């Protein structure tokens, strides 16, 4: 593996020094590659699974999720994703798609939400939550983000999210803003969206859940944030924690009016 890595880095270096007169830049070529993968996104497989899970009676209470309220009324899924995270009166907190799914799975189906939150991503009921989130996102594909900032808790969570976004810490003194706080930032050939405003915020926030080809996994926003924290060398956030939801509010509000493309396909 080390040999292969050396070869890869060498070939990377060789076309980073390509003359400016080269017909196609590396970025353009990569954009072509991404476009080629748009049709036939394996996220479709998870979307199909999610829709099936929504309509299947499951859990100790043997009930479907068809009465789950994602913010637009019981069972209304179309358009719900682009209004999340939002305040919910029944739980008296601001919730994102995945934490709201846990609420519904507990109250309607009798699952133990706290137990599911502890399951590692990609396993058991956690993978079902991801599939459900994928389908819910798909039902709002192409719609524009319209998160509400009417409720005082929604406004508070935006401010909390902003603080968290810029708070530097961990062994490398990183913050979200280290990578996502300015235009034009990249890591090697991976361009990084500026999440503090549109178009970056809408593009970045609106791309998850996404199918990651590098590991063939479906990632929801909760896992994306979890991995961001891992990359910053921070402790892992708890699934559905206020911190992760606050960051979702911050990005979503910054992305108001942007188009949701989830479920997307990513490297």
């Amino acid at each position, binding site marked *: 593996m080390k040999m292969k890595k050396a070869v*890869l880095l060498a070939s990377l270096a060789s076309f980073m020094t390509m003359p400016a007169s080269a017909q196609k830049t590396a970025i353009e070529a990569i954009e072509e590659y991404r476009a080629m993968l748009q049709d036939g996104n394996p996220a479709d497989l998870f979307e199909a699974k999610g829709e099936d899970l929504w309509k299947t009676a499951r859990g100790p209470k043997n009930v479907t999720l068809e009465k789950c309220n994602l913010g637009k009324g019981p069972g209304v899924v179309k358009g719900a994703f682009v209004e999340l995270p939002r305040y919910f009166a029944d739980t008296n907190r601001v919730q994102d798609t995945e934490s709201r799914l846990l609420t519904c799975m507990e109250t309607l189906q009798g699952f133990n939400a706290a137990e599911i939150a502890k399951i590692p991503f990609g396993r058991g009921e956690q993978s079902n939550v991801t599939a459900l989130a994928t389908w819910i996102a798909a039902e709002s594909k192409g719609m524009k983000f319209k998160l509400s900032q009417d409720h005082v808790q929604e406004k508070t969570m935006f401010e909390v999210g902003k603080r968290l976004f810029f708070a530097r810490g961990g062994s490398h003194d990183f913050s979200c803003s280290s990578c996502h706080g300015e235009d034009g930032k*990249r890591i*090697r*050939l*991976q361009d990084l969206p500026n999440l503090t405003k549109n178009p970056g915020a809408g593009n970045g926030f609106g791309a998850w859940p996404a199918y990651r*080809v590098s590991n*063939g996994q479906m990632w929801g926003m909760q896992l994306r944030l979890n991995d961001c924290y891992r*990359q910053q060398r921070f402790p892992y956030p708890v699934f559905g924690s206020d911190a992760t939801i606050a960051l979702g509010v911050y990005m979503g509000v910054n992305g108001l009016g942007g188009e949701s493309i989830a479920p997307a396909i990513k490297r």
Partner: protein
Amino acid sequence: MQTRRETLKQSAVLAGLLASTGLFPQYALAYNKGAFEAKSLADVLKALGAGAPVESKDVVIGGPDIAENGAVVPLTASTALAGVKQVLILVEKNPSAMVALFDVTDSVEVNFSTRAKMGQSSDVYAVAVMVDGQALYAKKEVKVTLGGCGG
């Protein structure tokens, strides 16, 4: 009079011949293990009993110039030529060169797309194996990079 052994041998040869025409799926050869273990274009073709590879402008290999991630590289193999028996997609520098083999019938266009894993930057090939055993190919280079950190 023909012995039983001769009859059996004849029918095996016959089945093999019928199978190689690609027109009788029920006689289809078992999975081409040898071809899938071959390390080079020449060895793959040898394992399939086809001729030596000849580059041809009539065969088309489609794919990206740069694949952001080698795990999923979209590749298309096509040709407008008639008399094609099989279409192969190969990645030269993979541990085994052949990715996929498509049997052509009159009911499908000779145009197949799939996605391959590439271990490193490499030439990729589309090969049209003709009914008469000729092997015509096109190739292109696909660079593979790990890119950044997964955004």
